[in-house]
């Protein structure tokens, strides 16, 4: 029962969501929020592999998302047209639905290669120094992309939506939603299977005592390469999804603020807790969306009570005061996050009947 329960559970959940979307029970706004939830789940839980399980401090995770977004967008535009940088499409738009998974995989593979950028210096440095290297890598990636005019430069790329819409010619369905939901579940299952295997526990061994890991036969350099590449590869996949959900990419969307969002989700959920980070990603997405309504409401109330001068408006920019503030409060009062490095099964032992994190 344990062996299949998690897959079956995920499958049923995915089926329910997709079914509801297909039947038109969910409006466009709800669909968009759910899609960003999925993207955030992939982004945060892949960062968790490095920052949580391996105990490194990667601050530039959005850089890999950026690579994935651009690779995904460029491939999509090259294969099916719709954008400026390329000439006529290489394939007819009817094939878009079959090639989209390949686009995602390619985006993941290229991002994984960029993950080596960070993995190789990590052999010699840890902690603060590696954190600086990852920030630098984030900036290098963004600056390089912004300065290549052939791929849009600072203007970004657009036109990917057309390819998603083309999928509906093949079969009428909320395709983008389906892809995001399926890919999110696949990514979470990949990470779950990794961290519960003896092979993946080598990652935690490197975190908890690198010397002991090496002496007990764990090839620590290989483990680091594997973790960084898998982590950045999945971030790339989330980037490719992001590009297609928005239909537009711009390198500046993946700057240090985006990386910070990832870290907030990881530290909110608990480093080294897969279930915690998934919950945190869901909560964070809801929070960001909630603020979209809460801030104007608050603004209105404060003005009605004449607590604010009429010339001062509380704008959406305050989101970036509130979110870092959450991070500060979290570090003060619960530095280990919601679940620490425990899983849901430790908090609710009855779940053990269904899922095992052993």
């Amino acid at each position, binding site marked *: 029962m344990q062996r299949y329960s998690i897959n079956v559970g995920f499958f049923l959940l995915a089926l329910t969501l997709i079914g509801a979307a297909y039947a038109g029970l969910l409006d466009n706004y709800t669909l968009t929020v759910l899609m960003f939830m999925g993207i955030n789940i992939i982004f945060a839980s892949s960062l968790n592999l490095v920052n949580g399980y391996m105990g490194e401090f990667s601050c530039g995770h959005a850089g890999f998302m950026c690579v994935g977004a651009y690779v995904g967008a460029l491939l999509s535009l090259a294969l099916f047209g719709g954008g400026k940088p390329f000439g006529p499409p290489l394939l007819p738009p009817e094939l878009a639905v079959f090639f989209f998974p390949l686009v995602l995989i390619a985006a993941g593979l290229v991002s994984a290669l960029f993950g080596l950028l960070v993995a190789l210096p990590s052999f010699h440095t840890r902690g603060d120094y590696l954190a600086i290297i990852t920030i630098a890598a984030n900036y290098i990636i963004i600056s390089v992309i912004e300065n290549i005019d052939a791929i849009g430069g600072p203007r970004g790329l657009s036109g990917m939506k057309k390819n998603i819409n083309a999928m509906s010619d093949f079969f009428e369905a909320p395709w983008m939603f389906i892809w995001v939901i399926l890919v999110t579940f696949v990514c979470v299952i990949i990470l779950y299977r990794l961290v519960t295997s*003896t*092979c993946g526990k080598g990652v*935690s061994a490197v975190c908890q*005592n690198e010397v002991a*890991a090496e*002496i007990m036969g764990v*090839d620590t350099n290989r483990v680091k390469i594997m973790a960084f590449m898998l982590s950045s590869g999945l971030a790339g996949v989330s980037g490719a999804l992001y590009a297609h959900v928005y239909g537009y990419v711009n390198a500046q969307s993946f700057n240090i603020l985006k990386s910070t969002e990832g870290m907030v989700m990881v530290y909110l959920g608990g480093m080294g807790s897969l279930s915690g980070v998934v919950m945190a990603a869901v909560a964070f997405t809801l929070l960001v969306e909630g603020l979209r309504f809460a801030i104007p409401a608050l603004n209105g109330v404060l003005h009605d009570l004449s607590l604010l001068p009429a010339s001062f408006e509380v704008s959406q920019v305050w989101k970036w005061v509130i979110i870092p503030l959450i991070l500060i409060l979290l570090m003060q009062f619960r530095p280990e996050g919601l679940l620490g490095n425990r899983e849901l099964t430790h908090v609710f032992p009855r779940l053990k009947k269904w899922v095992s994190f052993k």
Partner: protein
Amino acid sequence: MALLELDAVSQRFGGLKALTDFSISLEEGELVGLIGPNGAGKTTVFNLVSGFYVPSEGAITFAGRPTRGLKPHQVTALGMARTFQNIRLWNDMSVLDNIRLAHYHRLGYGLADAILRTRRYRQAEKDIERESRKILEVMDLADFAGEFPKNLPYGLQRRVELARALSTRPRLLLLDEPAAGLNSADVDGLIRLIRWIYEEFKICIWMIEHQMKVVMSLCQRLMVIDFGITIASGTPKEIQNNPEVIKAYLGDSAL
């Protein structure tokens, strides 16, 4: 042929010569001690043998292979295991997981198998689980399989570390001060445990130890180093009466 051979090994750290012309040859099935005052270079010898340091001069051969250029995990895979002076367990992983991870170098499956949960993965994990439970059983640790090492008393942590080292299936086991921090009752238990491991697993054991009681009752022969130089070697009896050794430990005026 010797299991482990060190031939005139020297190690320099900058201007400091931590070890000078150290030679030893260990045969299969021996129980040998390495003693010397604090800072004599004993742990340096173990770090060289296990591949953490590359010797400045000299050659190390283990199981018929020169180990120069091998990483510690590759040396482990050749059949060498080690415990540490200050216990180095993975503290946020259960005791069982600590033992399981010691099988890492012969997992027999890769990342793809783990993600796809292939038959090879399931078989390997089943074998690892069975063997780990077995070693916990024989080491009297079965009751603590689910505990985190950091919550165990010191003596038990030592035992977990020994069980973990044995799980790599070594031919040579290096013990770096196994009795450090144990009270005298625990030390007696440790002596029995090491003797039992030695007889049960039929492996070669090389140990660094300060407590004379331990080395005298266990080791067949001893080497003494001081300031990185070998000053004596022989049976425990011979060593006990060696004036050089007494001088190194107690100073000139003791004679």
